[in-house]
């Protein structure tokens, strides 16, 4: 059992490239911390620094209060699950799982007992004498997990452990990992680029971009109160819609109409860093739209507008409706980066408008190609500074002038 602490940790490669920049992050004992971000954001590098597979250029890394910068991986009491599992092909499942204990010169009887125990947890008992080559992807993944839990280390490190599995198995293993982590109560760092995995799995999520930590917090906080445009666009699926806006008096002028700012939002806006005036980028989550016909009391809480639904996807439990809004493109370096990462650039910039997504209830009578009256819930409006990309809203509940300092020491966006 140990907590992990990054103190101003920087990774600089020989060619001067900084993969991780001044990372400050604390993972409390027993927590499952998710490091998430697009590829190349430095999340894997950060993990590998904890493992001791990468040198730390600057700063200190502490595990259980002790600085481990100079310690070899074997002296850190960690276990790691690799993306491609890295099972030893020449050993049986049993030997794979017992390898670490064997190196630690644990008596054979004890190794056997621990391996059998882990195999039981992971449902691998009938495969113990097989070689990894004869196992399915999911079984290999479980062996990799088994190799980690057999040792009962003080820290688990997982580097995109589910990315090689098919979708169904991924969901299944996700719950299994969560179950094992809770059962063992071992401090865990889990790296992924999949925000759904991050949202469902973690106690807390750290979002990284270009080597810089963007925001740390519980999934609900990242979803409800993103610090900046990048986090806002990255967390949530389908992702947040962005529109240019202008604050005038007590309302925001958006291409879909004027939205009166609810009192709660106004208080947070006034407590936020930018004050309550000027141009903004508004963030609207797809799930905060609704078919206006299904909403009672809509005038007081939001804005109603009409849009032609270009594409309608039925999920059974809900609809995804896509429509265009006549407006200028919002431009922000962070959003461009996000779009490039998801490959959505060409979709966004077509036909001189902004492509929007709305999530509508299954009861809606919406039809593809028809006009629909849509309603947006203004209470969930997000507002960002178009220049810096920072959120203009103070944390909910804080109410007053200072934004709550979330644990782990936040970094401002670059």
């Amino acid at each position, binding site marked *: 059992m140990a907590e992990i602490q990054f103190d101003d940790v920087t990774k600089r490669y020989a060619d001067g490239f900084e993969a991780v920049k001044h990372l400050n992050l604390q993972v409390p004992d027993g927590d499952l911390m998710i490091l998430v971000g697009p590829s190349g954001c430095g999340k894997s590098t950060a993990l590998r620094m904890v493992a*001791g*597979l990468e040198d730390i250029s600057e700063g200190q890394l502490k595990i259980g209060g002790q600085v481990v910068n100079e310690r*070899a991986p074997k002296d850190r009491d960690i*276990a790691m699950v690799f993306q491609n599992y890295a099972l*030893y092909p020449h050993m049986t499942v049993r030997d794979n799982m017992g390898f670490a204990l064997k*190196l630690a010169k644990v008596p054979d009887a004890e190794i056997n007992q621990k391996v059998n125990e882990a195999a039981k947890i992971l449902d691998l008992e009938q495969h113990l004498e097989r070689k990894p080559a004869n196992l399915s992807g999911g079984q290999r993944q479980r062996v990799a997990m088994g190799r980690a839990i057999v040792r009962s280390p003080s820290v688990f490190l997982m580097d995109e452990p589910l990315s090689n599995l098919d979708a169904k198995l991924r969901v299944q293993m996700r719950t299994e990992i969560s179950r094992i982590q809770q059962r063992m109560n071992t401090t865990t760092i889990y790296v992924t680029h999949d925000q759904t995995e991050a949202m469902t799995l973690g106690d807390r999520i750290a979002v990284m971009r270009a080597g810089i930590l963007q925001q740390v917090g519980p999934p609900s906080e990242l979803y409800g109160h993103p610090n900046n445009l990048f986090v806002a666009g990255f967390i949530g699926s389908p992702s947040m819609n962005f529109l240019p806006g202008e604050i005038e008096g007590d309302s925001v002028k958006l291409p879909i109409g004027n939205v009166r700012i609810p009192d709660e939002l106004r208080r947070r806006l006034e407590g936020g860093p930018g004050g309550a005036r000027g141009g903004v980028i508004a963030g609207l989550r797809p799930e905060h739209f609704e078919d206006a016909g299904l909403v009672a009391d809509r005038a007081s809480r939001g804005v109603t507008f009409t849009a032609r639904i270009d594409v309608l996807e039925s999920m059974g439990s809900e609809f995804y409706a896509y429509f265009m809004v006549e407006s200028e493109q919002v431009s922000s370096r962070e959003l461009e980066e996000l779009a490039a990462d998801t490959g959505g650039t060409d979709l966004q910039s077509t036909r001189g408008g902004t492509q929007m997504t709305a999530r509508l209830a299954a009861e809606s009578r919406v039809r593809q190609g028809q006009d629909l009256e849509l309603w947006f819930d203004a209470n969930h409006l997000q507002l960002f500074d178009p220049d810096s990309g920072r959120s203009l809203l103070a944390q909910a509940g804080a109410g007053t002038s200072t934004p709550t300092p979330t644990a782990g020491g936040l970094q401002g966006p670059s």
Partner: protein
Amino acid sequence: MSAVEGTGGAIRPAARGGDRSGAWNEHTKRLTGWSGALFVISVCSLIPVLWIVFLSLKTPASATDGSFIPHHWTLSNYSAIFSLGTFTAALRNSIGIGLISTALAVLLASSAAYAIARLDFPGKRAILAVSLAVAMFPQISLVGPLYNLWRQVGLYDTWPGLIIPYMTFALPLSIYTLSAFFRDIPWELEQAAQVDGATPFQAFTKVIVPLAAPGIVTTFIIVFIICWNDFVFAISLTSTSAAQTVPAAISSFSGVSQFTVPYGDIAAAAVVVTVPVMILVLIFQRRIVAGLTAGAVKG
């Protein structure tokens, strides 16, 4: 191998076209062609071997009678060479020197190859280039200086006197083949071993070496055959049974008088030294093929 692939590839498109008899003719034609080629190759390579075997079974008097198959069969040549102290001693020297040189070469080469495959250090290319240059060096040009040097330092006509040059000339090839093998082993495996608590040396011996075993065996066999077959160093750096290997010993066989060449003895000795190599290759044939093609296809 290639014959099978060739015919297999040819028949499929034709069969899909529906013209079965045409395809069959084409198939037969190809099969005949390949069989003919293989037959010629086999005859060309096997006749000299058979010639030596038959020669070794002829009586000394009929050795030069010009017949391919002996008229008088005898094993006397074999018993003759084994009763000669020089041949058995040479056989012992060959086996000993060959094994020791090979073992040392593979041991050194595997650590060098590992470093080349895994580490990024200045002068890596230079080391590879130099080792390649050593392999290109004509051995005969080194024999003169080595002869003098070995006489001076007392290595002439000793086991180390042959082991050292054998090892040196085997190293470049070993480093090349082994580093290709090591490069194919995913780095994650080693990192996994490190995280599992292995020292770099343990990671090397317990994970990398077992996985590179086919490559190591292949290299071992190739290097051993090179040492076993060497004649230039053996004839120049040895003079007595103390270190003379079989190829050198055969060349010093003498007939009953200085005007007779002991063809039968030479042939018998040649058979005796060829057989172990052939057995080795036949046993490890699959390994050697697997070794030479490792990494060609992603598994």
